[in-house]
């Protein structure tokens, strides 16, 4: 038997997930307040975005400040889908914002959104495809670190301007506000209901578990190896650019799913989804919560956003300063974020395992 940290025990980790999501799932049964449920559903989306950064940056070492690209693209796709669910092919085939922008026919790019399934497919597929192409361009050229950060940020800025400028297609600054809630399989997903909360939590939970499982595979170990030393990985026969592109696209997929759920909740999409500061905030959530911990990143997102809404009313103007200070303090004193603190705390609990054939083949840092 040898002393170990319960934090690194795989069974304890899965157990903790079960308890965490279990408790979250029953909250509506005790609350039953539609406005709170809408608010909590939004936290779910923030959690999903933080997951995407944890996966790509925490585990893969790719500092993407452009997660908002996939989030925003998917949000526009979902906005268009919901808008067209409302339109009528015969009597009212063109969204009203297009009419005010003097369009006489529905633009071709909007046609597929008549069909909900095509709309969803495009809303998810296009950002993923874009991330694949963008990833190939960056990683074939062996860009890393700050260069990737700057490239993704610049690209995000470009998409923001596009959404802003292409007014007839995107409603520009005003954004698209589909008049009715999303309907799937005949069920209306009311943004002010327990259902919307469960949808958001369900996606968050599903993605957390899926990524957790992915990190247990050899792929998960290899991306962490590449994060540590891409050159070493290359000489072991791994096509580093290929792995990074796949990982980057997976991160894009996760952020795109967040975008879909976001528009179900807010029934509104505008260039704010592509705002540069928002994407940087996502990275801050993950850094503060612990980028090398899925749980930590999700917690960081919820914690910071809850703090903003709590503190925000009084300190709205200074909130960014507070956030900046928290970020600097955490990066300086807690490189593993809150999760690192939690790891140390759990380590105090007496816990033993059998020799070195213990819990898992994963690194302690690759833990929860």
């Amino acid at each position, binding site marked *: 038997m040898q002393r170990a940290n319960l934090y690194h025990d795989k069974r304890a980790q899965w157990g903790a997930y079960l308890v965490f999501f279990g408790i979250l799932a029953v909250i509506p049964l005790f609350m039953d307040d539609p406005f709170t449920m809408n608010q909590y559903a939004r936290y779910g989306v923030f959690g999903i975005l933080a997951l995407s950064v944890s996966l790509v940056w925490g585990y893969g070492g790719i500092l993407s400040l452009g997660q908002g690209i996939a989030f925003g693209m998917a949000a526009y796709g979902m906005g268009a889908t919901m808008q067209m669910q409302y339109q009528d092919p015969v009597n009212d085939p063109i969204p009203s914002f297009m009419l005010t922008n003097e369009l006489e026919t529905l633009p071709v790019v909007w046609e597929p959104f008549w069909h909900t399934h095509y709309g969803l497919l495009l809303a998810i597929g296009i950002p993923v495809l874009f991330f694949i192409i963008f990833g190939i361009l960056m990683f074939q050229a062996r860009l890393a670190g700050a260069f990737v950060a700057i490239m993704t940020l610049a690209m995000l800025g470009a998409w923001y301007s596009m959404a802003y400028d292409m007014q007839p297609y995107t409603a520009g600054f005003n954004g698209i506000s589909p008049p009715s809630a999303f309907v799937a399989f005949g069920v209306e997903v009311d943004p002010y209901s327990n259902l919307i909360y469960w949808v958001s939590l369900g996606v968050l939970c599903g993605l957390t578990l899926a990524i957790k499982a*992915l990190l*247990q*595979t*050899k*792929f998960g*170990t*290899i991306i*962490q*190896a590449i*994060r*540590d*030393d891409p*050159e*070493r*990985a*290359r*000489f*072991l*026969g*791994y*096509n*580093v650019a*290929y*792995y990074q592109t*796949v990982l980057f696209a997976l991160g894009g997929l996760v952020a795109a799913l967040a975008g879909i759920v976001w528009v179900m909740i807010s029934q509104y999409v505008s260039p704010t989804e592509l705002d540069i500061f928002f994407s940087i905030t996502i990275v801050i959530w993950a850094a503060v919560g612990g980028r090398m911990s899925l749980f930590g990143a999700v917690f960081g997102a919820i914690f910071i956003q809850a703090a903003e809404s709590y503190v925000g009313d009084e300190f709205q103007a200074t909130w960014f300063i507070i956030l900046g200070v928290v970020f600097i303090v955490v990066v300086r004193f807690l490189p593993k974020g809150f999760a690192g603190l939690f790891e140390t705390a759990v380590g105090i609990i007496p816990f033993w395992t059998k020799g*070195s054939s*213990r819990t898992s*083949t*994963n*690194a*302690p*840092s*690759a833990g929860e």
Partner: protein
Amino acid sequence: MSVILELKDVTKAYDAFKVVDGFNFKVNQGELRCLLGPNGAGKTTTIDLITGRQKSTSGTIIFDGRAITSLREDKIAKRGVGRKFQVPAVFKELTVRDNLRVALNKNTDPFANMFRFGRKEGRERLQEVVELAGLQDRLDELGGNLSHGETQWLEIGMVLTQDPKLLLMDEPTAGMTEQETQKTSEIFNRLKGKHTLVVVEHDMAFVREIADVITLMHLGKTLAEGPMEEVENDPKVKEVYLGSEGITDAA
């Protein structure tokens, strides 16, 4: 005996300065070759050229019957070339066990590896390597927490796990204790025959233990090649090392 690695007139130039200068080099299957030479002779650069880390200015590199001259690093590695870096390189934030698991590279496709948990994969092989490298008790330790000697061993272990046809070892015993060096020479002696090794070394006692044939590099060229005694007594070698005690001292 068949030739597994051949460098034909390979040159690597930085501006006018030729670090490797029309270098010709042949290694037979199953051989253990020592590559010697003073600092700056171009030994590490030669390994970089073979493994694709640097591109040669001119010349051809043939491995296992095919030219690998302008291939990408990972493709050369997949053909069966493994290397140990002069400055030991392991994955610092992965455990020793995971370092070795990553080195197990039978399948390098990302999608295939998403469905591979690898608990059983290559278990005997890992067991063997771990014992050889003496890392049994360090499996759960992070790569970054190992001592210098252990890091050297881990990297050698990774190259062995990779199971390449050709192993390129750049100063594998640097920083090792005498005992560790002794153990390394035992392992290398065991590996030759089945594998082909090219070892860059400075420790002459070690070279004597392991080498059949040595190649002495000087200013990017072969100065002498042959068995140890022959090279040592070569007048050209004596000339280059004039004033010193011979290659033992210079290397």
